[in-house]
């Protein structure tokens, strides 16, 4: 049956490069994470510089950890395990290197553009269109190389780890492309093709499945390779692998709308988000069981092995967050957790525990093998494990506490029917100590990472690198006789192309069922006559709002709760957002909601906003919002106005040609009016040409269309 024995070499160089990149970006991403953790209670740490302000550093942190740290972690593990599971070298060393350098260049471009304020304003998809195109290209290179390698394998069947790699490749490609449809305005500026409710549905279909197919499925694949290798025990259940794999990828794709519970999205889509999230518990736990029970008969080894300790905590963290996730998708729980730090705690159990610890374990296991030596210090690795685990607890527990506390304060009424804490700031001041504890927990975790780097460097120095690792395996024969009673799934495992296509079909179903009606059925977004497009100045102001990342701390979505209506005004309707390319609902309220900021209930004078942006603490003592002095120095990008309006018109915003032509003049006239009013209010240096004027115009517009309609 088996063909002649063939000798070949595994490419370890590409694994080494990706491992180094994982470590480097891990350090960078977590360092920026620490910065934002401190900035949130020490606003002076933005150094009054636009580049280092929370609205820009926070997206840098999330992008760096997800796409740079975990992204390179995925490539490290895939490039190592794929070759060995298929008994062949990667199909093309050149493509491997293009994958590597392309990805690193994208990360550098991402870091620079995010700090410089180029952003699409959509969470976890902030990168602008040229980078989006580059990501798609490099991702295709990765998939091409992987698939060509699969096709010339020496192993008849593909192992469960590779099923997960295939699902990851296909789904991430679909998610990234569909969510990134945007119309360029200039080289680094674009508007999302979708608006309001539809943009939100697409974005959270993407956002949730970035968690599913970038942070989860590839790492499950890595778990299926590295855990049995490290513990030297068989995988617990092949049957479970099959069931939980297909169930997981089919169900996951539907779950996105759980990010939009109690929002202006239609009820049916929220219902789908909830039920599919709940059904995800078992498929997720299938992965956890298969990981943990692979350790059966070898638990004593966990005591002695730092690698296994990291794996056990990683898989446990996976089990905890995949139980918590479905719970947070229940409307009654979500009403509490949404917009609070509970969400932040939840994602960090996943990021620090599951992704972080699995990566550390994998690299501790890999590096000695790549360098043909022993790990420099098991003691140091154990120290890393304990300080990292403790750090996680110090990180998460205060944030759970903070989230719950803040919710209780938000919703409390006095007997007289007043909000017990009408000033949002009181609820922030209350949880500041928890923010401080969180930053201590994060620092501990980071100290662990430093120990990790030292250990890796010392190990590398002591070893000698095996760039091309010798291996041998029989060639695959063209004829194959299937075994008796092999089951329905086994044949699929030797047909990777069919496997890929089936995966694609399975993941397209959920997205299609949710998105097609959301786009085609008009009743999903009832029109509100009074809602009009932004004026040219407001449009520019909105772009500043995006650029400064205001959505990182301020939502624009009043939920239908008595306490939110009392605090912010009537709950938000889907028809209010039809001209919002992109939508700006946000996902976290570090500051108050701004959807109705311009309405009588909340309206402040222009001068209040002017002074507040210059120094928030002058108007709102104790505020943790950073200062934005550059808005008072930088000129509004007036010349871009007609082009921006023209692109908006293409996307369906009803600007007429005359309005577009007169856009610049209209902008200047409105800016002059605001500046004059500011001067009348005693602000002497209110220069009509500065960005602050546009931002004030935008903030004062928020919520006013429907307010007018209500009065008529």
């Amino acid at each position, binding site marked *: 049956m088996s063909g002649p024995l063939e000798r070949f070499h595994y490419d370890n160089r590409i694994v080494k490069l990706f491992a180094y990149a994982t470590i480097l970006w891990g350090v960078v991403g977590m360092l920026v994470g620490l910065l934002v953790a401190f900035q949130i209670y020490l606003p002076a740490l933005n150094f009054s510089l636009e580049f280092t302000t929370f609205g820009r550093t926070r997206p840098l942190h999330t992008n760096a950890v997800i796409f740079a740290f975990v992204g390179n972690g995925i490539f490290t593990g895939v490039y190592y395990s794929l070759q060995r599971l298929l008994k062949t070298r990667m199909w093309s060393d050149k493509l491997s290197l293009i994958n590597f350098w392309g990805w690193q260049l994208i990360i550098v471009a991402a870091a620079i553009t995010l700090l410089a304020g180029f952003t699409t304003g959509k969470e976890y998809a902030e990168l602008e269109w040229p980078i989006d195109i580059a990501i798609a290209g490099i991702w295709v290179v990765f998939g091409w190389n992987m698939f060509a390698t699969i096709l010339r394998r020496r192993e008849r069947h593909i192992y469960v780890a590779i099923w997960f790699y295939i699902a990851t490749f296909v789904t991430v490609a679909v998610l990234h492309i569909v969510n990134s449809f945007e119309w360029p305005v200039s080289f680094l500026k674009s508007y999302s093709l979708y608006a309001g409710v539809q943009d939100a549905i697409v974005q959270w279909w993407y956002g949730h499945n970035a968690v599913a197919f970038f942070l989860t499925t590839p790492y499950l694949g890595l778990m299926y390779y590295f855990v049995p*290798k490290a513990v030297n025990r*068989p995988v617990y259940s092949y049957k*479970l692998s099959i069931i939980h794999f297909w169930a997981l990828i089919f169900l996951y794709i539907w779950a996105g709308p759980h990010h939009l519970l109690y929002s202006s999205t239609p009820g049916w889509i929220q219902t789908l988000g909830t039920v599919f999230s709940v059904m995800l518990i078992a498929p997720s*736990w299938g992965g956890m069981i298969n990981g943990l029970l692979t350790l059966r008969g070898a638990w004593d080894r966990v005591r002695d092995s730092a690698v296994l300790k990291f794996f056990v905590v990683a898989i446990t963290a996976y089990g905890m967050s995949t139980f918590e996730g479905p719970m947070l998708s229940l409307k009654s729980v979500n009403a509490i957790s949404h917009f609070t730090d509970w969400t932040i705690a939840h994602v960090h159990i996943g990021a620090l525990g599951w992704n972080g610890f699995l990566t550390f374990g994998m690299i501790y296991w890999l590096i000695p093998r790549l360098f043909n030596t022993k790990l420099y210090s098991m003691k140091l690795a154990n120290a890393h494990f304990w300080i990292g685990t403790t750090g996680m607890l110090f990180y998460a527990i205060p944030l759970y506490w903070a989230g719950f506390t803040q919710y209780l304060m938000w919703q409390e009424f006095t007997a007289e029917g007043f909000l017990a804490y009408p000033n949002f700031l009181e609820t922030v001041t209350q949880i500041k100590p928890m923010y401080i504890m969180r930053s201590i927990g994060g620092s501990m975790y980071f100290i662990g990472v430093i120990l990790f780097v030292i250990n890796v460097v010392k190990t590398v120095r002591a070893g000698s690198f095996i760039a091309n690792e010798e291996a041998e395996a029989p060639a695959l024969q063209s004829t194959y006789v299937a075994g008796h009673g092999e089951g329905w799934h086994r044949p699929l495992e030797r047909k990777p192309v069919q496997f890929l296509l089936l995966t694609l079909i399975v993941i397209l179903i959920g997205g299609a069922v949710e998105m097609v009606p959301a786009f085609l059925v008009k009743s999903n977004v009832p029109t509100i006559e009074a809602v009009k497009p932004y004026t040219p100045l407001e449009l520019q102001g909105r772009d500043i709002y995006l650029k400064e990342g205001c959505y990182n701390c301020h939502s624009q979505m009043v939920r239908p709760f*008595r306490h939110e209506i009392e605090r912010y005004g009537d709950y938000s309707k889907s028809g209010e957002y039809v001209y919002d390319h992109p939508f700006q609902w946000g996902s976290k309220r570090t500051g108050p909601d701004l959807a109705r900021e311009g309405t*009588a209930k909340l309206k402040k004078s222009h001068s209040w906003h002017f002074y507040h942006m210059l120094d928030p603490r002058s108007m709102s003592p104790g505020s943790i919002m950073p200062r934005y002095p550059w808005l008072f120095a930088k000129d509004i990008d007036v010349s871009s106005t007609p082009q921006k309006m023209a692109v908006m018109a293409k996307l369906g915003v009803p600007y007429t040609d005359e309005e577009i032509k007169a856009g610049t003049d209209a902008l200047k006239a409105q800016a002059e009016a605001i500046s004059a009013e500011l001067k*009348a209010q005693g602000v002497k240096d209110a220069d009509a040409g500065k960005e602050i004027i546009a931002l004030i115009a935008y903030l004062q517009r928020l919520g006013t269309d429907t307010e007018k309609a209500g009065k008529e």
Partner: protein
Amino acid sequence: MTEHKPEFEINEKLDANLMDHEYDGIRELDNSLPPWWLYLFYGTILFALVYVVLFFFMGKFSQEDELQAQITRAEQELAEYRAANPISIDENSVTLVSDATSLADGKATYDKLCFPCHLANGGGSVGPNFTDDYWLHGNTINDLYRIIRYGVPAKGMISWESQLSPEQMRNVASFILTEFKGKNVAGGKAPQGDLYAEGGMAAADTTAPEGEVPQQ
């Protein structure tokens, strides 16, 4: 690397279902799905079906209904509370208070909510100066109560009636009139509104009226 391929160890008791394939030395067991796991999965599917029937097909528990129920309940509770604790003060009936406790309460409110715009000494910045003789919307206790209660949205003065009780609004208005009126602090904001002589009568139109006083 010679030690790279360790033989997978076999545990007679645990590995009865060992399958005959291996990948890079990784073996798999053909164990059945754990029953508790399977029932958990069936349970969540059942939950999903029931949930969809209730929420989608029967239209129960919509967020609009939930809100309506919340508001109805709150209104009932408030009505009961008001029946036991009637409001005795509004902008027509309010009178200036001068007792130390009320003024201290007014000061506390002022120092918490008012000073960012009107400054701690009443000299004004975003909002007008309380210490000169010019007033935009009148300077009687009734005027101040009305402004605090309903706000002047056009000028950025928000309505406080959803945050302050009638007593608190009366106390802070009394505090402003007692503590600041006529003090003419140094460095105060330039005069706005009309010049008022003692007794609250406009003496002369020195400045054009800027804002509108809500007519209640």
